């Protein structure tokens, strides 16, 4: 229960969450070291089951809130890329587009 913490950003901002990769898990204390853009933060794992090293998690006020789904992350970007094709096919406005890409 004596976490050493490296702040990746302004520690005064409580509400921002950051995605990072778990690099180490202390199973007894249920605390992970999470790598965020080169620095490390500690995150309590009390709110999540079945997390392992190399998983990406969203860290918020010292806890991992949720695992990040790589599949969903890619699909979100794919939905935007599809817009290019649809707008190339027809230059119709948003109001009149028949086929919704989303």
């Amino acid at each position: 229960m004596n976490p050493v913490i490296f702040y990746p950003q302004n520690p005064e901002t409580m509400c921002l969450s950051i995605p990072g990769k778990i690099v180490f898990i202390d199973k007894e204390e249920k605390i992970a070291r999470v790598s965020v853009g080169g620095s490390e933060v500690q995150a309590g794992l009390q709110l999540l089951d079945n997390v392992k090293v190399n998983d990406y998690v969203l860290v918020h006020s010292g806890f991992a809130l949720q695992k990040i789904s790589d599949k969903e992350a890619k699909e979100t970007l794919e939905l935007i890329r599809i817009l290019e094709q649809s707008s190339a096919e027809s230059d119709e406005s948003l109001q009149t587009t028949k086929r919704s890409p989303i």
Partner: protein
Amino acid sequence: MKYVQEYRNKELAALLLKQIHAWKGPKVRFMEVCGGHTMVIQKYGIPGLLPSNVSLISGPGCPVCVTSLQYIDHAVALSRLENVILTTYGDLIRVPGSTSSLEREKARGADIRMVYSTLEALAVAKNNPDKKVVFLGIGFETTAPASAVALIRAREYNLRNFLLLSAHKMMPPAMEAIVDAEVKIDGYLAPGHVSTITGSNIFHDIPQKYKLPVVVSGFEPLDILQSIYMLLKQIETNDFKVEIQYKRAVKPQGNLKARSMLKEVFIERNDWWRGLGVLPDSGLGINDAYADWDAERSLHVVIETTKEPGGCICGEILKGLKKPSECPLYKKTCTPVNPIGTCMVSEEGACQAYYKYGAA
């Protein structure tokens, strides 16, 4: 950084903006509820990229901003007690109370410590067995589980000197109150991080009851733009529902483990919000099983009479009725260095975000 950089891609942003600019419908105004969204939107200059018939307005989702002065005054009174250590997230330290602030009390010698997590606050309690260690629990469903974990642990380890002063709040009642107050909005960019815990299902009533589109959004520029596009699509098709744009982190049912911990520790109660007043069942009090760890019940202090700062329009800003630039104090007597109202204190407050990133 993975899951960050790719959502700042310029070409993809241009694709989304092209679609948004094709909007030929009536003027629409969407409310971003979360203070984190307000920051991102201002930081990346998103309002300036949108067409004149699509605009954004900030809502009540900055935890520090909606917290009552009475809570700050309560914390100030606790900090003056002998043998009390206050632990808090940094945001609260500079918030002016009626006549003092935690920063001022700290300068006068009160033992007030900034922590990054409730686990740190627990460690302070463990290392100071002869002191009462109070954690100031503010924030929405995103920070409330952290407080719940702390109380469950304190009970497990029989750590009797750790106490929580809860001002935790829940987002959906405030979102309904905004519409009930007849603030004119055409859709909600719903808070992404709150939703990682609550799930998107919690917003279900809003499209049903108010015929408003709701999209749970992530926090990078592409997330915001894609969410705006999805909101426009819902209006266009007249099909109002809750959609998740932030699918990489949000599930319809949320984080069940965190939700069950909230249920174990907290109980819904009426709570006061700056700008919105008292909203039924919008706050989280500590339930009887954890009464011994409740600072409200265990430590008795006299709280001074609340005095809101004159001229500050933070309440109207939180409600989406006014913009920071319409406040007579904004950029004049009220600045991030010398904040008068809570909307200027917090990084997530609309006033500070507008001030910092230069929006009019």
